[in-house]
């Protein structure tokens, strides 16, 4: 028997009960991998920030490229100190930020590796359903052959590649990833 899937509705402006403390920090002292900060602004078609009413979730593999999930049967080490999920609400400037690690490459179609990336899901007041996108890293050789990047017209690929910001001493490297919902520089979203 086939059932109709339940319709999506907007997350609305008052989802802050979903933001348990620490949900945007994915790392602990024992987590393996290179510490990074990823963050950016969530912007509308006028370039205006989604102040306090946008929510970003991330899902990623560990430093070796394995997801904390039973369906990931790749022969790669698990990291009991890394779950791979984060959630962050935007602040008054539309800014979101996560403390995480750089993920390893994950197996893709035809035995090829996907480029290291972070899966990003966007929710907001005014978005009637959530949007899927991906954050890729600049200068990765695997970006050239990544199946999802290749599915995007070259002119729009840069919207999926985070910008490395100059590091400061011991601080984790920071990658900037603005998400533009609409307009000229609209971020590429995927039909997942």
């Amino acid at each position, binding site marked *: 028997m*086939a*059932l*109709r*899937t*339940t*319709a*999506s*509705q*907007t*997350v*609305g402006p*008052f*989802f*802050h*009960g*979903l933001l348990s*403390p620490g*949900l945007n920090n994915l790392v602990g002292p024992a987590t393996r991998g290179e510490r990074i900060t990823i963050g950016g602004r969530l912007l*509308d*078609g*006028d370039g*205006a920030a*989604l102040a*306090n009413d946008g929510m970003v979730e991330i*899902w990623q*593999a560990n430093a070796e490229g394995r*997801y*904390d*999930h039973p*369906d*990931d*049967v*790749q022969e790669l080490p698990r990291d009991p100190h890394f*779950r791979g*999920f984060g959630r962050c609400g935007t602040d008054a400037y539309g800014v979101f930020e996560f403390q995480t690690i750089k993920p390893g490459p*994950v*197996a*893709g179609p035809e035995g090829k590796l*996907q480029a290291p*990336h972070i*899966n990003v*899901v966007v*929710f*907001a*007041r*005014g*978005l*009637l*359903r*959530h949007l*899927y996108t991906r954050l890729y890293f600049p200068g990765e050789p695997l970006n050239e052959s990544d199946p*999802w990047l290749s*599915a995007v017209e070259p002119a729009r690929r840069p919207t999926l590649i985070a910008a490395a910001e100059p590091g400061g001493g011991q601080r984790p490297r920071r990658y900037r990833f603005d998400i533009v*919902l*609409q307009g000229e520089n*609209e971020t590429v*979203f*995927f*039909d*997942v």
Partner: protein
Amino acid sequence: MNQPLGYRKPTPGTVPVLLFPAYKSTVKRAPQKEPATVEATLCEVTGPQPTAELFGSASGDLTHFDGGEALGERIIVFGRVLDDQARPVRGALVEAWQANAAGRYANPGDRHEAPLDPHFQGVGRVVTGPEGEYRFLTIRPGAYPWGNSYNSWRPAHIHFSLFGAGLANRLVTQMYFPGDPLLPLDPIFNSVPDPEARQLLVCSLDLASTRPAYALAYRFDIVLRGRYATPMDE
């Protein structure tokens, strides 16, 4: 490694159009370009495990916050989480949030001049059982005004967020109450193209599940995208 099997698309007619001008905030926020079409990978068929470590402690009782009882009409909201082949989705994380009985959220951004209730925070979190079942004990939320147009009011609703097994069947939705006269006026409700799919967002009174002399019960079943069983189906 073989490619994992993907998830079926949502049923046609159930997906709101992103640009729905009657809901004013969609106008500048709805993407206008076509989404990129891609093959399923391990990245979307996996997703976070619904642990307390990640999401915080779970409680389905929203009526006892900070040592007292919430004001308003107590209700039980319950149902099953199923996939599109009517199979139970076990171990799904169900988060719910809502306004209090007066129509106000316990949220600093909510400026509606209705009383706050010190004993109602309005957030619940449960994980589905072996038959996909979940249950909340809460307060019937009030309607509230919003700035969409002159004198617009949201019908009473409870927000739901769900994680099935994979990122691909993530769902955020809202549950409404039967017979609410605000429903036909609500652009968020009306953004769902298929009227039958819209009606499935409305819960139904279930007298048999009521706790006598304590709380009425409303059933709300939720259907997530299901996963292909064989590569041939895909």
